[in-house]
């Protein structure tokens, strides 16, 4: 789609687009190309010698059990966050769509966790689930669970998943609710007349019609779990115990700030970029809301 009307000026459009182009080039393309270049360099610790090594950094990474472990952690983490987050929010949205009274109040009460920073969300749960003084931990101890996320890897994973899901539920809820409300009521009435009960209506009509929303949210949640949850992990478990919650993004950060291996860190960045690009392409391919030029 193009505008029929155009203004003519030889310099004005460039002046208008210059700020964005400048920032994009300096803070985006320059660093991204640096990452690509550095991912193929090998530097010694004092940066005295630099050697071009092609894809050796990538080969080393995929031979490194610790890197592969962080891949596994990320996979488990993002699967849990996506599945739990979508299930719970779909449940809430389905009920919110059904109630007539106080619908707006429920909506307001459910959307605000979106506005809480990931790191702050993590701190809230660190406090709730603190092994010695946490309110919820006491309940767990009383039930005979020896809860301690500081030393138990499974507990640590549970903690970060809960914090991540808690924050993301409102986002999923809003999109599911909008999706549900877009389903014509006449369809459900027709199904009811055909004799389908509420559960059957949900699985045979509502859920299929909701699938574009669901697919969109799956991609968004995976991206969220991969990249936006750095704050949760850094502010709660710091990747521990023994790497049990070290996701790919957290590892890039850790290696970049501590290990001083720039080539490896850059290679990790490049792998992350490839993952985001893939996810974005998938999203654009399968969702009809493509950006059209």
């Amino acid at each position, binding site marked *: 789609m193009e*505008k029929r*009307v155009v*203004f*003519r*000026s030889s310099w*004005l*459009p460039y002046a*208008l*687009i210059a*700020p*964005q*182009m400048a920032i*994009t080039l*300096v*803070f*985006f393309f*320059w*660093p*991204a190309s640096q*990452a690509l270049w*550095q991912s193929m360099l090998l530097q010694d610790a004092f940066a005295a010698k630099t050697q071009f090594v092609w894809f050796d950094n990538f080969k080393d990474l995929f031979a490194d059990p610790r890197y592969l472990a962080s891949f596994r952690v990320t996979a488990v983490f993002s699967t849990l966050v996506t599945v739990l987050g979508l299930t719970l929010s779909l*449940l*809430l949205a389905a*009920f*919110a769509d*059904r*109630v007539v009274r106080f619908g707006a109040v429920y909506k307001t*009460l459910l*959307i*605000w966790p979106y*506005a*809480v*920073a*990931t*790191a*702050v969300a993590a701190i*809230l749960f*660190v*406090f*709730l689930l603190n092994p010695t*003084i946490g*309110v919820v931990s*006491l309940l767990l101890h009383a039930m005979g669970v020896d809860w301690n996320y500081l030393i138990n890897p499974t507990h640590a994973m549970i903690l970060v998943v809960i914090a991540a899901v808690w924050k993301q*539920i*409102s986002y999923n809820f809003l*999109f599911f609710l909008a999706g549900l409300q877009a389903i014509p009521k006449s369809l459900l009435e027709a199904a*009811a007349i055909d004799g389908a009960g*509420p559960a059957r209506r949900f699985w045979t009509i509502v859920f299929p019609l909701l699938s574009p929303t669901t697919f969109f949210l799956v991609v968004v949640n995976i991206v969220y779990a991969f990249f*936006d949850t*750095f704050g949760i992990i*850094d502010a709660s478990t710091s990747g521990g115990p023994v790497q049990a919650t070290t996701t790919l*993004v957290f590892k890039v*950060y850790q290696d*970049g700030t501590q290990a001083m291996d720039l080539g490896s860190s850059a290679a990790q*960045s490049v792998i*992350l970029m490839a993952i*985001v*690009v893939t996810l974005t392409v998938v999203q654009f391919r399968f969702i009809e*809301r493509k950006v059209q*030029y």
Partner: protein
Amino acid sequence: MVEHRPWRALSGHLVLLLGIAVVVLPIYVAFVASTLTFDQVTTVPMPMTPGTQLVKNYGDVIAHGSTLGSRAPVGRMLWNSFVMAMLIAVGKIAISILSAFAIVYFRFPLRRTCFWLIFVTLMLPVEVRIFPTYKVVADLGLIDTYAGLTLPLIASATATFLFRQFFMTIPDELAEAARIDGAGPMRFFWDVVLPLSRTSIAALFVIMFVYGWNQYLWPLLVTTREDMYTVVIGIKRMIAGGDQATEWQLVMATAMMALLPPVAVVVLMQRLFVRGLVETEK
């Protein structure tokens, strides 16, 4: 729905109330903790009703941080967070609306190239290019500055595409009428495009303010001085090593203040927020 059975409505309300209770619980506990004394908060179990230290705890952290952990005053951090959120929100909107205007209303060489260069930035969040970007910012001497804190986050395509999409819905005849009325491009921009974009701008502002306020990884890297910390990264620095050293009542007071502004924005401008959220995800 079709059937009218009282128990179904009731079960709906129950599920929703349960959901809300779970969502609210962490905040409630945090709020209670932020009103207690150090001794109360470390008691096992902690009291579950608000104490009397609200004013003292909040006042203390605003003025001079915690005593055992970081001593950076939270008041300064809140200001930094506010400046960062405002600069990111206003900056993104300003550069995006201008570039979208150029792309939609002008034909110029390299237009397509510019469009695609901006489009590609949609794909890469700051987290994945974090160290190379850090190096650029460091080379430019922008560590510990507001510019360094915000500029790399302003480079994003979302807002540009939102505005572009909106501009496409403005009828061509409006621009033609303005040309015949004697308005040049910038006059048309100020008198017609900008007023018509008010809702989009407001919706985007809500989203971007929250986004800016809640940044974590980037401020963690580019701020080294306490007086440049934002509140979100300041909280973590208050949690000292062992449990005994952490003044949870102060950490929770800070957490409450860190989450209140963006939550207030979202709740008060709920309609704009929902609209912005849905539109930026197109």
